[in-house]
């Protein structure tokens, strides 16, 4: 039982991080209709910046228990690059989707070199030990509290996003813009402002995810591309543009990843993409996506 709980929590932790990135991807696609391949770069950027920020803060006396809030803060302030990139994307809003894909793919590659230029090509890891928050140990079951806090943070962000989109006026404006941009504009919605806000929030979700995962892993130049591939599996399973879909897709991919590693490690990727193919064949719009009419 404890063995299953360990595997399950490993999968949920992976799902929590995937959800944050996929939620950013979904939000941007849902409102701006841009398939943002650069979302992996935001994740990598968050991981590297998280390391630098916390090292700097620790040097100036930040207590170790502040690690988690400091990483969230680092991810949030890094979201400031969102409006700058959104400004660049404006040039392709009214162009063919292939232009949008090419531009965001170029950004993904450019960011890899920017990361290499700033942080070098060697993998980086955080000096502060995430076990400062302790461990939950029960018989053979053992999990770092930090992992549970990351899962909790993802749940809070998911709930917050849901409430923001469903219950606030600005959320309604966003949904209206996503439904019909011209109508929203005609009714006086500042669409440019909406796009900048949405892209910034999407960027922040990626950078916060990267910053949160780095204490348990390390930052390397490859993590951006690796994550994009997984995030797209999440989006295909959950349905493009759907926030509940991002959550469902992330949970499916995270759990399949953890279970296949435990049961038959050779089939880790195959298992995930069999589900992707199954969804594409049986429900092309994804579990929560709306079929294109």
């Amino acid at each position: 039982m404890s063995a299953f709980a360990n595997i399950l929590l490993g999968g949920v932790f992976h799902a929590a991080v995937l959800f944050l990135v996929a939620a950013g991807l979904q939000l941007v696609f849902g409102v701006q209709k841009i398939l943002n391949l650069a979302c992996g770069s935001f994740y990598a950027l968050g991981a590297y910046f998280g390391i630098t920020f916390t090292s700097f803060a620790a040097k100036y006396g930040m207590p170790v228990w502040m690690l988690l809030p400091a990483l969230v803060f680092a991810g949030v302030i890094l979201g400031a690059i969102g409006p700058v990139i959104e400004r660049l994307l404006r040039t392709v809003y009214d162009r063919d989707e292939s232009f949008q894909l090419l531009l965001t793919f170029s950004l993904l590659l450019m960011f890899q070199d920017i990361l290499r230029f700033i942080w070098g090509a060697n993998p980086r890891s955080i000096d502060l030990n995430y076990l400062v928050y302790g461990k939950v140990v029960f018989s053979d079951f053992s999990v770092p509290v930090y992992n549970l806090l990351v899962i909790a943070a993802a749940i809070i962000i998911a709930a917050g996003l849901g409430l923001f989109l469903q219950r606030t006026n600005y959320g309604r404006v966003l949904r209206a813009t996503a439904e019909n941009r011209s109508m929203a504009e005609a009714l006086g919605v500042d669409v440019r402002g909406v796009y900048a806000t949405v892209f910034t929030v999407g960027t922040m979700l990626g950078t916060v995810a990267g910053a949160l995962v780095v204490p348990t892993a390390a930052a390397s130049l490859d993590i951006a591309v690796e994550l994009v591939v997984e995030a797209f599996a999440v989006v295909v399973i959950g349905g493009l543009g759907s926030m509940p879909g991002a959550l469902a897709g992330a949970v499916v991919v995270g759990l399949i990843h953890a279970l296949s590693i435990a049961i038959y490690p050779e089939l880790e990727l195959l298992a995930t993409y069999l589900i992707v193919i199954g969804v594409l064949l049986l429900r092309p719009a994804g579990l929560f996506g709306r079929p294109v009419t």
Partner: protein
Amino acid sequence: MKLSRRTLLKSMAAASALASPATVFSPAIAQNKPLKIGVLTPRTGLAASPGISALRATEWAVEKFNAGGGIAGRKVEIVVEEETSPKDTIERFSKLVQQEQVDHVQGIVSTGVALALGPVVEESRVLTIFWDGTTQDGVEEKLPNPKYLFKSTDNECEAVMASLLAIKYWKGQFKKIAGINPDYSYGRNNQAAFIALLKRFNIEHEVVTEQWPKVGTMDLTSHVAALQAAKPDLIFSSLLFADLPVFMKQADAAGLTKSAKLVFPAAGWQHTAMKKEFTPEGMLFGHNTLYFDNPQANPIAKEFVGWYADKHKDYPNWEADRAYFSLVSYKNAVEQAAKAKGGWPAVDDIIAAMEGSSVESLGGKGGWRKDHIADQTFIQGFTTHKNKYDFVTLDKFDSMYSTDLQKPAGANFWEWIKTAPFKV
């Protein structure tokens, strides 16, 4: 201008003399030119830690050689190129040979690159020494008896030694074994060698899980959970890149470092990153051919480690020894051949002098077999926290020469492992 037949013949003779290789010139002319050595090493990416350590050792050795008059009277110059993918590294090797016109090439850490580069070296006819990696596909030699290429010890030496030590010290203390190894031939062969040796010595065992993370995977949460679920008595791992400290952190958080015995034959590549806070005492830890804190180290090794610590505020890993061993054995061979010839030796003379030679390297005795495979001294032992560093070092350790760890020339590795006279 009219050309007579005699003038034309003279001009052709002069032109062909100028176009001939440098070796036909008199030794006096050759010795005035610096000796150019090409170095191919990874300075960035996952393998940067060994690549940089080896490059620093090369620079240190060259400085020492030059202070003592160079190699056979010629000052040494190194030309450094990056080792990356097989294709790009082959291009850089060709650049070193054709554009830079180096006399000799050393380097290479990756097995994949070494396997691809081997035939190119033979074609180039430039004496080349591989620090690490092999020209084996799995454990099958793809370039037997090369002429110009000299290769490092077999990749499996460290796994064989770690397996023998695990059996020697822990026989009867484990039954359920798990593996987490990088998903390429090195990791797969090491795990298979461990299992083969357990069978060879009739150690009762049950493989409860085998994990194969892709090289460079930094999120190992699910792999650690799978190991936790399998509840092994012993974990064998040849993780050796930047993913090793990440794994160790997560394994420690999951309690695996306390519940299982740990056998890590290649951990020495990351030794300074294996911090005490998450790396336990009593783990079987491989430093391969250089243990920087060896109290019985020879004077040259002590001098090198002291210089390394002062200059780079760091401690060298085994790739530094591989680089020093390659350079010093090349120097000895050139000087021996030059002495015998009474002038600068041809490449064939240097090759002949290398074969069967032995030197004292940073990690101890080393030498070259007739089939151009290295023999070196390996060190593995049990970790301790009782030291002045923030990372683990060795408490009790064993030293073995590779004649007891690698298959003889032409042998099949899996057949050899079944019958080899191991000294456990």
